């Protein structure tokens, strides 16, 4: 039996019961479009998180201080600070492949400029911080090495600071007071917008770490050391070497816990993407249930169809159709239902996610691969759920089928 003739027979049978065909397809359409839209939303969130992670900079290792409690009480950052500038220098000096390093302290502070005031995060960083974080200065310049050495009172500010304190005017060269200490603004950072968790990343002031330690906070320990490596392949060994180096410097004997924590960017990225992956999977699974329900709908209708057309099957068998011909005929019907439903569903799903992106500002991402997978999956559902009814049809006894009323 020729495939083309079988296809025509199958299509005609579907056209004969238009209402039924459309309703059966609807199950697939809803299922596939739900999967496409849901996975699109999940992927959108994931890509946004990934973009945030990339904001950390490339090949970055973060060393946090104070991972252990002193006397059972956890001090906050700073009070339990265990990292020093010497540690940072030692890392830069002794670890192979370090291309940038930025010792970091941070504090929340009230800032004043003119008659405006604002509460923000003040970061003490080295001059290399902006390269390390791939966070360019769009107006003005960074503070200099000289500023850093002399602990000068200079600052680079985020976009939100300029809006809150200077009403969007050019703040370069102007003075703002942090804890009543006057700082001169040398540059403005590129706006990064909101983070995934909704934090304003532009609500920040960056000053030399030396200034922050000596003049602002009066501390001698660091909160974090940002280390940038040359290549991603160096991350794992460098991480290990940093741990050994710091244990040695901090005189931590074997079997004792580290008084610091070393994380590389990959680990942080993995944690964040694991969350978004779980979300995508969950959304996809919920939508997948509707796809399966759609498949069951196809199976149901195909079973009804086989029963209704028992006599037709008998006639076809009497004039020479093999069981295989009948199987193919009903299988093609089922696959056509699911595949056309799938195609329409893909269109609807892509449309839905674009609508969500446009109207509700949800980041959605429908990749070509998810579309291909959805189509193949819907065709596979047609085969899977169509096989049992088709097989039932192909195994009918022609004598019984011809007698069927």
């Amino acid at each position, binding site marked *: *039996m*020729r495939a083309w*003739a079988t296809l025509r*027979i199958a299509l005609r049978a579907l056209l*004969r019961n238009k209402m039924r065909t459309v309703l059966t397809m609807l199950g697939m359409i809803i299922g596939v479009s739900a999967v496409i839209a849901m996975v699109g939303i999940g992927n959108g969130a994931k890509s946004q998180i990934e973009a945030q992670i990339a904001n950390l900079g490339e090949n970055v290792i973060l060393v946090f201080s104070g991972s252990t409690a002193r006397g059972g009480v956890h001090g906050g950052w700073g009070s339990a600070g265990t990292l020093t500038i010497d540690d940072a220098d030692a890392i830069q000096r002794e670890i192979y492949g370090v291309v940038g390093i930025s010792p970091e302290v941070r504090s929340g502070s009230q800032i004043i400029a003119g008659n405006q005031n604002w509460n923000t995060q003040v970061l003490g960083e080295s001059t290399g911080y902006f390269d390390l974080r791939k966070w360019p200065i769009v107006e003005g310049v960074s503070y200099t090495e000289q500023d850093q050495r002399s602990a000068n009172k200079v600052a680079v500010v985020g976009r939100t600071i300029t809006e809150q304190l200077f009403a969007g005017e050019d703040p370069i060269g102007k003075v703002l007071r942090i804890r009543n200490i006057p700082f001169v603004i040398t540059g403005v950072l590129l706006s990064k917008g909101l983070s995934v968790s909704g934090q304003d990343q532009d609500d920040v002031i960056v000053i030399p770490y030396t200034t922050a330690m000596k003049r602002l906070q009066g501390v001698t320990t660091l909160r974090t050391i940002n280390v940038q490596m040359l290549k991603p392949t160096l991350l794992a060994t460098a991480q290990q070497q940093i741990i050994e180096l710091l244990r040695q410097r901090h005189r931590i004997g074997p079997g004792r816990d580290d008084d610091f924590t070393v994380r590389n960017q990959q680990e942080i990225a993995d944690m964040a993407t694991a969350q978004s992956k779980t979300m995508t999977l969950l959304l996809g699974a919920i939508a997948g249930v509707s796809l399966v329900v759609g498949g069951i709908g196809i199976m149901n209708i195909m079973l009804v169809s086989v029963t209704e057309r028992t*006599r*037709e099957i*008998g*006639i*076809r*068998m*009497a*004039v*020479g*159709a*093999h*069981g*295989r*011909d009948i199987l193919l005929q009903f299988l093609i019907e089922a696959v056509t239902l699911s595949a056309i439903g799938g195609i329409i569903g893909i269109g609807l799903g892509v449309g839905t996610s674009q609508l969500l992106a446009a109207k509700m500002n949800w980041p959605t991402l429908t990749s070509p691969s998810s579309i291909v997978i959805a189509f193949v999956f819907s065709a596979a559902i047609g085969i899977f759920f169509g096989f049992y009814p088709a097989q039932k049809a192909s195994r009918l006894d*022609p*004598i019984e089928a*011809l007698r069927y009323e």
Partner: protein
Amino acid sequence: MNAVIQLDDIHKTYHTGEFDVHAVRGVSLAIHQGEFVAVMGASGSGKSTLMNILGCLDRPTGGRYSLDGVDVSELNRDELADIRNRKIGFVFQGFNLLSRTSALENVELPMLYTHHHLSSHELRERAMKSLTIVSLADRADHHPSQLSGGQQQRVAIARALINEPALLLADEPTGNLDSRTSVEIMGTLQKLNDEGITIVMVTHELDIAHYTKRNVIMRDGKVVTDTLVTNRLSAEEELRRLQQAQAEVQLIP
């Protein structure tokens, strides 16, 4: 002359629960090319079972059946389907046409399952030829619901003829038709038989059996009588007579 059908001691036993039902108990029969045979018998006589075996829809449980020189008693499902497709044309009591499918496409149906591939043009041409034989070429586009019972049965005959079978099997072909249409259908079958087509027909109507050439009567799964028809009726003459009678009725005021 070559036997189209050669049955040797055919048995068919159904196993239903505790009982064994012996539907056919040893039928031997030879039907030669050009014969027109009516198989008759009361219900339960085994004639339907025999027809299913003759039509290769069912296999005998014992004996040998050779159709057109091929031993078909041991063939599998698919091989039987091919035999039905190439060697047998079926005409059923209930016509068994595909509804909502044109007469032409109904006639084409067996060719869809034939091994040698024909273009749709050739398909159409052959189907039209077959419809012309039963004088229904002008109704090729009609659906079965738009045709009378007699016309539907003629479409079924055209379908049976499409693959030029060795044997035409008719299962109560006039069972659903009024007497006049029945005569018409018998006329069509007689005409085909005159052209050399072998026909085996099941019927329980004695007058219909009189249009055939040979009557086989079955009882309890066995052939009890096998006679040649001596005073064979001609459907053509019968129709002429009916028309005359009708004309006379209309003349009476």
